[in-house]
């Protein structure tokens, strides 16, 4: 598998604060990477830079062969649209659209809304029967699954999850991790920021950030199962 992402000496500096400091990281296509660390360690900053929602102060980020650290705001928007799938801790579904429409929104901004494709995506996450429900009519776990379907609808190069199980109970956490496992099996590259050691441990690889620096880089392939043990 080739490299899909490469961070070279990446730093993010806010005034005197070094949110990220000289990070070097390579992620191969199809990898499942967990980013862990205490609050304020720079996990989300790193995810935002990888997800083209922020730019590094120093260093370069090569995503799918493109140096995104040199891209303009509109260039980053295009890359985000074409190559990134985002999953949020708080789901961020549009409240006045149904589950199906929420998935179609991502298609709309990417290329062309396709009802059948969106329905298939919902079927994949087991929510075909809830397609016409509004987010307020869905449980937290169901909302997160809609969020995953939305993130996957445009076949992104990388799926980024920011605390995707942070707001879920154990049952839903297991469902979401199972979905990640299936996506990983399909060859999707997954990068998941998590506080939860159990979610972090199911990935193939785990990095730990501390004070903006890469403190650990653990290869978990030997113990990798992709299944959450609760």
């Amino acid at each position, binding site marked *: 598998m080739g490299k899909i992402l490469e961070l070279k000496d990446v730093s993010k500096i806010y005034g005197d604060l070094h949110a990220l400091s000289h990070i070097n990281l390579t992620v191969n296509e199809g990898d499942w990477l967990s980013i862990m660390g205490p609050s304020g360690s720079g996990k*989300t900053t790193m995810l*935002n830079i990888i*997800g083209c*929602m*922020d730019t590094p102060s120093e260093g370069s980020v090569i995503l799918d062969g493109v140096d995104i650290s040199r891209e303009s705001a*509109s260039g980053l*928007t*295009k890359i*985000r*649209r*074409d190559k990134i799938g*985002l999953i*949020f*801790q*708080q789901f*961020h579904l*549009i*409240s*006045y*659209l149904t589950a199906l*429409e929420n998935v*179609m*929104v*991502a298609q*709309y*901004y*990417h290329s*062309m*809304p*396709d009802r059948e494709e969106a329905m298939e995506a919902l079927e994949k996450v087991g929510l075909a029967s809830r397609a016409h429900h*509004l987010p307020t009519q869905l449980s937290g776990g169901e909302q997160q699954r809609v969020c995953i379907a*939305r993130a996957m609808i445009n076949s992104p190069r990388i799926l980024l999850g*920011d*605390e995707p199980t*942070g707001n879920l109970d154990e049952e839903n956490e297991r469902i979401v991790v199972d979905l990640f496992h299936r996506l990983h099996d399909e060859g999707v590259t997954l990068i998941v920021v998590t506080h939860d050691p159990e979610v972090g441990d199911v990935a193939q690889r785990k990095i730990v950030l501390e004070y903006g620096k890469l403190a650990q880089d653990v290869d978990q392939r030997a113990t990798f199962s992709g299944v959450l043990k609760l």
Partner: protein
Amino acid sequence: MANKRRKMYLRMVTSSLIRRASRLIIAVLAIAIGATILSGLVTIYYDIPRQLGREFRSYGANLLLLPKGDARISRDDLTRVREVLGADRIVGLAPYRYQTVKINEQPYIIAGTDLPEAKKNSPFWYVEGDWGSAAKPDHVMVGREIANTLDLHIGDTFKVLGVRWGQAAEASGQNLSAEENRGRDEGDQNFSRRFTVCGIVTTGGAEEGFIFADIDMLDELVGDSFRGDVVECSVVAGAEEMDKMTAELENRLPGIQPRAVRRLTQSQDIVLGKLQALVLLVTVVVLIITMISVSTTMMAMVAERKREIALKKALGAENRFVIGELLGEGVLLGIIGSGAGVFLGFEFATRVSLNVFGRAINFPWLIVPVTIVVFVVITVLASILPVRKVMDIHPAIVLRGE
């Protein structure tokens, strides 16, 4: 392909409005109230000339037609005058024929006229008793001054004597006997008739010195065909229109000299101008207030939907897409609000018209699309500044997990 995108766009915009209706009710109300006042005032603005024009007609005739030199105004002339003035503008058109008569050997003037038309021209006359009519030609109205002089009351009769048309009067002779003098008054060249007083006219003006009778009866009495010595017209028209009408009348009826009563038409124009300026001013103020209200609501809407906007940008929406959606919602709000407002505005205008002028109002249908377009433009203009805030929303900051 583009069709699918358009459908999705419409679905997003309409869903946002329908499913967030409770939050947008203030904006819709602001637009609806603005549109109500705007369409109402504009309806009144355009109807004021008609309404006030008729109101001003209660001050009497504003156009007099006089014969030039020895010419006489015929019935054909009246028909052409009606054509020039336009039936819908004429409130009343009353020809007058003046005939000197004697009552108790004292000279008086009978004004023969079309009594129903004279009534329309003179709503300010106070008539005690009844107006005369062609159906009862012997029943006449007398001016208050004559009634006082001759001690006439409603129902009293009096005899008039006069000289027929084209005949010379023979003066009474001092050396003739009373019988001979009476013979001179009642000869073939003379007429006499007894009338009954059906009404006494009080105007505070010259009219109190006249006897008002049906013009056809007077023509027959004097033995002549129709002759108008003067025609009084009450016409709904401003000063400018009146000038045009008089010019056309002079052009088409060379034997007639039209004279507009400028004092009336000019004061009518002044009052109308001031009222219309006031309505225009209020309309502009309402539009500004509506813009401020919509702008504030849109500002609150953008702030409230910061996360949603950030999410759309995170999903790859460019600013122009998000701005287009919010403006689309603004357009729809404008259509809904102004659509409701325009009909409420008509109701408002009708009530104002009934209460102030005592008349129903004409609904100018053009006001519907015009109001809707104006309010859509206003909503879009009012939304531009708040919606530009979209550009300042950074998804990474807004969507940060907790």
